[in-house]
């Protein structure tokens, strides 16, 4: 039975309309988890002292894998023995975070048996995070997870757990099957996911359209964003309904807000100059019953997003303006592999691919991975005159 700890500060977070994480930890503590109980103690201490009590993790993990576990130790192991070790296990979620009651219970059974009973549903990369266990528990948890068909996610300098929006499973706007692509890529690159061999982490994220419901352009080294190459589909009758209805003011809410001003509306008929459309999704978002992405669908592949450490945050940038996304996604796989080869060989330790491209120059990068430069890859051509001319035969040196 877990120790009962006094947590007056944390208790203040038990009230209020938003669900309480303190309640969750207490639920686990009351469920008999010593680790949960000690976690309450540590946390109450942190709340008192305004400082954390966790130490840098060492290298812990399961056999044959280099990632998937984050080692964590407490700096007061005597006071809080049940969280002296408090490692997390990253479990690769199914595409789109779909579960059944059944499978969730199986996972709970494993975690109740070996761990703290506490989870994150989910981590910000997308994994199911089993939060806090002993080093001893790692192998058994892993074995039991694989038994029920689950495997670990990524950590360290490997391919991280890919994630995707629910896409075609529940969204009318998905321009390709994000869940299928995410699953296929995850399965295809199991070795890269489990055995860190890159200069630094690599994240894939798949969004079905440019609403980007998994924040891929900001948070993934390879962002696959659904789009179309023909014209937006317009249902004239449905436009008429919107026009007659009260909910949408087409002139104000749609025409005026189109970033390229390429929509015109005469009160009943809506026309889009698709050559000027940048596929931002806004008009479609506002009138989902009347407008839809075009029929020629695929994705734009963007590379290189990351958080600020250390050269500053980057958004991903366009690498392939339009790629039809059909299984088995050979083009995407080949692109990733070409990049990994180059970055693997020339990237510095802890240099994300976005930083690497900036260091060697996008032009050189393209040349090395064998892609033709196109103007879609840049916001604009260079403004500075510092051109590294490479003189060819025809330029004849004196």
């Amino acid at each position, binding site marked *: 039975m877990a120790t009962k700890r006094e947590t007056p*500060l944390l208790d203040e*977070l038990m009230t*209020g*309309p*938003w669900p*309480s*994480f303190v309640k*969750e930890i207490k*639920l686990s503590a009351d469920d008999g988890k010593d680790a949960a109980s000690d*976690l309450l103690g540590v946390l109450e201490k942190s*709340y008192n002292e*305004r*400082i954390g009590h*966790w*130490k840098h993790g060492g290298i812990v993990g399961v056999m*044959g894998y280099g990632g998937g576990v984050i080692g*964590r130790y407490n700096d007061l192991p005597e006071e809080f023995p049940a969280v002296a070790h408090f490692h997390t296990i990253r479990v690769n*979620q*199914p*595409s789109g*975070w*779909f*579960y059944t*009651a059944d499978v*969730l219970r199986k996972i709970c059974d494993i*975690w109740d048996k070996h761990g703290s*009973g*506490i989870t*994150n*549903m989910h981590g910000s990369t997308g994994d199911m995070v089993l*939060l806090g266990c002993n080093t001893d528990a790692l192998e058994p948890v892993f074995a039991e997870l*694989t*038994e029920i068909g*689950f*495997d670990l996610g990524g950590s360290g300098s490997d391919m991280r757990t890919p994630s995707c*929006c629910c896409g075609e*499973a*529940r*969204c*009318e706007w998905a321009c390709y099957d994000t*869940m299928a692509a995410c699953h296929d890529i995850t399965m295809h690159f199991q070795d890269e996911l489990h055995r860190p061999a890159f200069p630094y982490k690599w994240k894939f994220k798949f969004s079905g359209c440019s609403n980007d419901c*998994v*924040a891929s352009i*900001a*948070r993934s080294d390879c962002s696959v*964003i659904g789009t179309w190459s023909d014209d937006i589909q317009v249902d004239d009758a449905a436009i008429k309904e919107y026009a007659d209805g009260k909910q949408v003011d087409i002139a*104000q*809410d749609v025409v005026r807000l189109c*970033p390229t001003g390429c929509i015109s509306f005469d009160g009943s008929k809506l026309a889009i100059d698709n050559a000027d459309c940048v*596929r*931002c*999704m*806004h008009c479609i978002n506002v009138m*989902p019953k009347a407008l839809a992405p075009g029929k020629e669908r695929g994705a734009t592949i963007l590379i290189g997003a990351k*958080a600020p*450490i*250390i*050269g*500053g945050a980057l*958004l991903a940038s366009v690498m392939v303006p339009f790629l039809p996304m059909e299984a088995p996604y050979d083009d995407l796989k080949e692109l990733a592999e070409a990049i990994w080869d180059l970055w693997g060989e020339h990237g510095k330790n802890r240099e994300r691919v976005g930083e690497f491209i900036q260091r060697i120059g996008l032009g050189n990068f393209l040349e090395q991975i064998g892609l033709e430069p196109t103007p879609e890859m840049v916001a604009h051509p260079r403004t500075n005159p510092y051109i590294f001319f490479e003189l060819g035969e025809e330029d004849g040196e004196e």
Partner: protein
Amino acid sequence: MADRKTDIGPPHYEKFLPPIIKANYGKWKHHEIVKPGVLMHVGQSGDKLFSVRAATPRLVSTVTIRLFADIAEEFCDGHLRWTSRNNVEFLISDSSKVDPCVARLTKEGYPVGGTGPGITNIVHTQGWVHCHSAATDASGVVKAVMDELFPYFNDKKLPAKLRIAFACCLNMCGAVHCSDISILGVHRKAPVVNHEQMNKMCEIPSTVAACPTGAIRPATVDGNQSVEVIEEQCMFCANCYTVCPAMTLNDPINDGLSIWVGGKVSQARSEPMFSKLAIPFIPNEPPRWPTTVAAVKNIVEVYAAHANNYERMGEWIERIGWPRFFDMTGIEFTKLHIDDFSHAGETYQRSVHFKRV
């Protein structure tokens, strides 16, 4: 060991899809928000799927997961999913079960909401619950903020979606660099070097190399091979600490929070935007972080009162201009707001196209 399973990957998602999704996969026609937290997706077939979205604190016990499993079984044959922002969704094909499901979730303390133009769950990180690097707690701040902003989750509308993200240190494991409002834990004291442990725990050259400002240099201290930090050159990024455990920045008085505004990820209307600094520092005030909560609330309310429909925080600020943002929110503009990192010059106002207060 011979039968040790590895590299099996995650289970195929298809196993977990409800029949209505299998039948309408890739063939949805449109959707509407029936009421806060309840989406109705209509298939080309005419089928209707109701998704009931409930808040979670993200950190959930197995007790609660089992509760969700029970609820899913009761209302939708055991089918549920999580969203990219830590909400749980119950996938219901029988419309009569929607309201009872909502009622049950509400009763259990997992309120339904987070759809449409308003505030949904906060993407966040570990904080004092698990991470060694944290300048603050994550879950506690999130709880305190969401308690206050709760009406915007399940009732009050905003001009557009307002995404909040939280990260407990500059590694920014939450997507705080691109959110309408971000709360970010910051250190303000240069790393304290444990000279005795230094050479044992860390590689000195790679520690020196880790510092982007060159603030770290090798030094012998009390006979130990170690490093010293030129304090004026430190910008508290903690990259040295990530590389070397013997250099901690955590500090009870000088750690705290900063507030950022105007980022976005979606490409609707405008291109994605980075979040920009609004408030450089607020002290840690556990357990309920009142100053931080009030600061966030103030920004939300000023935005709510002034932005146009469909206008995200960053779009609104771009329209009115930063001078007016600071003026309207009453936030002080200081030297610290002016970028001084590598591309700082790109943020200077290089035209007269600024709007007056």
